[in-house]
């Protein structure tokens, strides 16, 4: 090989080597840049909202753990004492029934009245009322997402497995029971301001207006709002506690 060629090869190899090095370092340093890019001022609002929720949850978790430990200690201490055991289980049952929607709930809250509105009917007609189920379900959803503790629609309590369904423009069902759509009354006990924020932010009034319905909210601040318990017998055919036989 001529010296000239050798120099050429040497230079090319040198260049290749440095290219590989640069390439390697670029590939390796990139994830770091992305990490640093993740948090910006724009994220701050969301982070704060999420943080507030997590703090709230944590507070509850601590009190719930204390509560559960006390209950377990109660059971340990009452083994063999029938009367005391029954009493403790009755208390526990009352709490669980309340959480499941099986007891009446009283308190402050809002009443939403949804009725035919002349202006709305003149503008949009009533054809869209076949989608009333979706609008009602969203209303329930945004109420729950904004601190509602108990909700009923025309006297039917909303529970974990509640369904809302429009069979036709005239036939609407809550928990598989037909309701009259002439006047729909949604009652919700909970944080009045928060619930209203949820309803306004998601423009539910507009959604109902486009179905020919008015959407009026009344505050109840004297604790007189009553939400009835779930009305039907409950039976689970498929769901069972982990590690247990069928109910």
């Amino acid at each position: 090989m001529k010296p000239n060629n050798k120099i050429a090869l040497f230079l090319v190899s040198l260049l290749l080597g440095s290219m590989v090095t640069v390439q390697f370092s670029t590939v390796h340093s990139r994830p770091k840049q992305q990490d640093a890019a993740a948090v910006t001022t724009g994220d701050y609002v969301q982070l704060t909202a999420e943080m507030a929720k997590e703090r709230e949850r944590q507070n509850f978790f601590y009190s719930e753990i204390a509560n559960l430990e006390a209950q377990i200690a109660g059971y340990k201490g009452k083994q063999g004492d029938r009367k005391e055991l029954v009493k403790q289980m009755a208390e526990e049952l009352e709490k669980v029934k309340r959480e499941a929607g099986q007891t009446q709930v009283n308190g402050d809250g809002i009443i939403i009245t949804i009725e035919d509105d002349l202006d709305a009917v003149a503008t949009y007609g009533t054809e869209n009322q076949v989608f009333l189920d979706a609008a009602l379900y969203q209303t329930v959803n945004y109420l729950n997402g904004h601190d509602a503790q108990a909700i009923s629609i025309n006297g039917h309590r909303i529970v974990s497995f509640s369904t809302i369904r429009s069979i036709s423009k005239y036939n609407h069902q809550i928990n598989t029971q037909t309701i009259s759509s002439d006047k729909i009354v949604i009652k919700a006990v909970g944080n009045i301001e928060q619930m209203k924020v949820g309803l306004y932010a998601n423009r539910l009034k507009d959604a109902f207006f486009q179905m020919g319905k008015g959407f009026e909210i009344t505050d109840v601040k004297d604790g007189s709002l009553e939400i009835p318990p779930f009305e039907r017998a409950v039976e689970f055919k498929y769901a069972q506690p982990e590690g247990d036989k069928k109910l």
Partner: protein
Amino acid sequence: MPKKINARVKLTISLTMISVILGLMLSMQYKNTRAAANTQSQVTTTDPKAQYTADQLSRIKEQNKALEGDIEKLRKELYEFEKQATQAGNNVPPEVRDDLTKYKIMAGVLPVKGPGISFTVTDSIKDGQTTNLLITHDSDLRMMVNEMFIGGAEAIAINDQRITTTSGIICIGPIVMINGVKVSPPFEFKAVGQAQTMMATFELRGGVFDLLGDPGGRALSFSKPKMHPSLTLPAYAGDFNGLSE
């Protein structure tokens, strides 16, 4: 002479190969640099306040996860004590425990298992771009939940968040929260109940799944729903919006 030619050919071949590799490397390098520059141009400056909150948030989330685990353990222990209470020697009527179990499942505070179906849904990627119309909204998830219950579900969880009496699925900006906890796509649905009828809701023309998955419309991407002989859903550990306090 032939020897010389041979050496020359060898040199030419090796030089050609090196040049090809070099060319490839150069173009890759160029592409990489461009991509890195693009990422960097999208990056606004990191906000130290936001960074601090993000760090705190991830810490509190870890703690909460551990606390949720503790609660689940304690609830199981409590459940065992309740079972024992109805066994011989204590004479507590078994109906009390049956009611307790039933309403715990209904409220969602007990992990459950049973036959069911699972599927995932995620944002649509139409024309390579995800736009506001094509992302999965809180209202979409809620309508799917309603549809599954109509179809025979007894209990549902999305990304391990159990649907309870007071569950809300809401968006805060671009993030979806269920039970006050952030969940991200893909959204994994698990439903315990009558599997056959739940599967049928996917076939229903004009039904929720048909409309949301319509390639000409929202075009959300659904995985093929799967039937399971036994699925386990986690329990809810929250405060029912203050109802249980």
